[in-house]
């Protein structure tokens, strides 16, 4: 397997420009994988010189191919970029797919619940928000801010949702640890009723009572905020 093709596939799939040292890290990590074969292991400690030579070769390859994109090195990091003459359509593409303004309040709230409590089911989200989240979830899924991350091991095996890397990017967060007040809001769930788990379809965990906001005025809110530590 030619080194340049491996590099090409990496730069092709990376969501951000990669520096030579990041690329070397990928080779090192790949070799650590359980099922790493001889080829993968042999590239564990690829030399920076080899790497750069292969990258240069790639640049030449793509230049010669004369396609609508090329490989570029910007500020020491490598990425594929499209040729400028296609910008009228690319602008239109961004327009079509662009961030459509800011998120609405219901979307933000739902997103926040997912961000802090992931993974969780739609039913759990609705339990917390007290209203249906169908439309909102649709928006969030379409915008790639949340995704299905698996299925809850309860009756009906409902989908579990979590945030995507795009979510982090959108809000400029380095990781989920970077969520504001993360500790506090994550902790607020805590108390699980000691009662036996009668599988309530769609509820993977018990609803965090403290976050239930009553919808109807007559409805007494559940005893809020019992704190555990």
């Amino acid at each position, binding site marked *: 397997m030619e080194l340049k093709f491996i590099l090409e*596939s990496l730069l*092709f*799939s*990376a*969501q*951000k*420009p990669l520096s030579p040292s990041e690329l070397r890290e990928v080779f090192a990590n790949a070799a650590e994988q359980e099922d790493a074969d001889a080829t993968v292991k042999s590239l564990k400690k690829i030399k920076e010189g080899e790497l750069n030579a292969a990258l240069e070769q790639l640049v030449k390859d793509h230049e010669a191919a004369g396609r609508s994109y090329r490989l570029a090195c910007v500020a020491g990091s490598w*990425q*594929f970029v499209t040729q400028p003459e296609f*910008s009228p359509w*690319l*602008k239109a*593409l*961004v327009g079509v797919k*662009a*961030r459509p*303004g*800011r*998120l609405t*309040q*219901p979307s*933000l*709230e739902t*997103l*926040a619940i997912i961000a802090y409590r992931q993974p969780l089911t739609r039913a759990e989200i609705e339990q917390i928000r007290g209203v249906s989240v169908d439309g909102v979830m649709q928006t969030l899924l379409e915008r790639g801010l949340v995704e299905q991350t698996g299925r809850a091991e309860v009756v009906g095996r409902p989908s579990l949702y979590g945030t995507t890397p795009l979510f982090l*990017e959108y*809000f400029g967060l380095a990781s989920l640890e970077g*969520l*504001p*007040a993360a500790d*506090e*809001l994550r902790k*607020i769930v805590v108390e699980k009723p000691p009662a036996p788990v009668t599988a309530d379809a769609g509820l993977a965990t018990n609803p965090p009572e*403290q*976050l239930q*906001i*009553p*919808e*109807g*005025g*007559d*409805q*007494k*809110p*559940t*005893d*809020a*905020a*019992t*704190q555990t*530590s």
Partner: protein
Amino acid sequence: MSEYKVKFEVFEGPLDLLLYLIKKEEVDIYEVNLTRLAAQFIEYIEMMREFDLEIAGEFLVMASTLMYIKSRELLPVDQQAQLEGEEDGADPRWELIRQLVEYKKFKDAAAQLQALEATQENVFPRVPVKLEFESEKPAPKPDVSIFDLLNAVNAVLKRLEKRDNTRDIFEDKWTVSEKIEYVVRMLSSRASVRFSELFEDAMSRSEVVCTFLALLELIRLKQLVCAQSEDFGEIEIKKRVADVVVTAPVSPTEPDSQPQ
């Protein structure tokens, strides 16, 4: 013997077992000796009985079909019995072979799907770096996002921690709806409230969180708006001009707590 036991468990059904037997004979399905196949099949069923394995009904049905074919073949063609409902000239051997061929094809197709499934695990889509046009027009920031609010609440919590390191021992008595009333009350007499003011008297973390959730709920119900003049600046909370009366979330309250 023990080999059989293991084998039984992997057969998906009688057709699967028959295909296995045919494969073992190394003959084409069309050329298989059905009489011998019937004998082997029944041998397997007997073996399953000996091992006290549960024999699915489908296996027994197949065994009887095979017995029928076997007995039928012992007779000359003109004396072969016609099963009730069997079309004139229908041949049960042919019917079984047709079924086996069909099943075999789907089994092969399943294997191909399995190969596709394995391949797909290793196929990665291109997820490009976001196009740079986006930076040309940065999203305007007219409103305060929930994350700004969360940032703010985090700050409040931190302050609280500094003020009081001892853990609350008393039971928290705050509810979100009480806090909704509290916020509404504060705004009934004034045009706006600073975010931090809402938390000034908070005694515990849970109280802060309740107040915060109350705030979120009021925003959700479009009763309040938040505004922030600069990033990381103080957030101001105002009543929404259009609809002043808080409806849904507030539990029955004294009249004087209602906004006028």
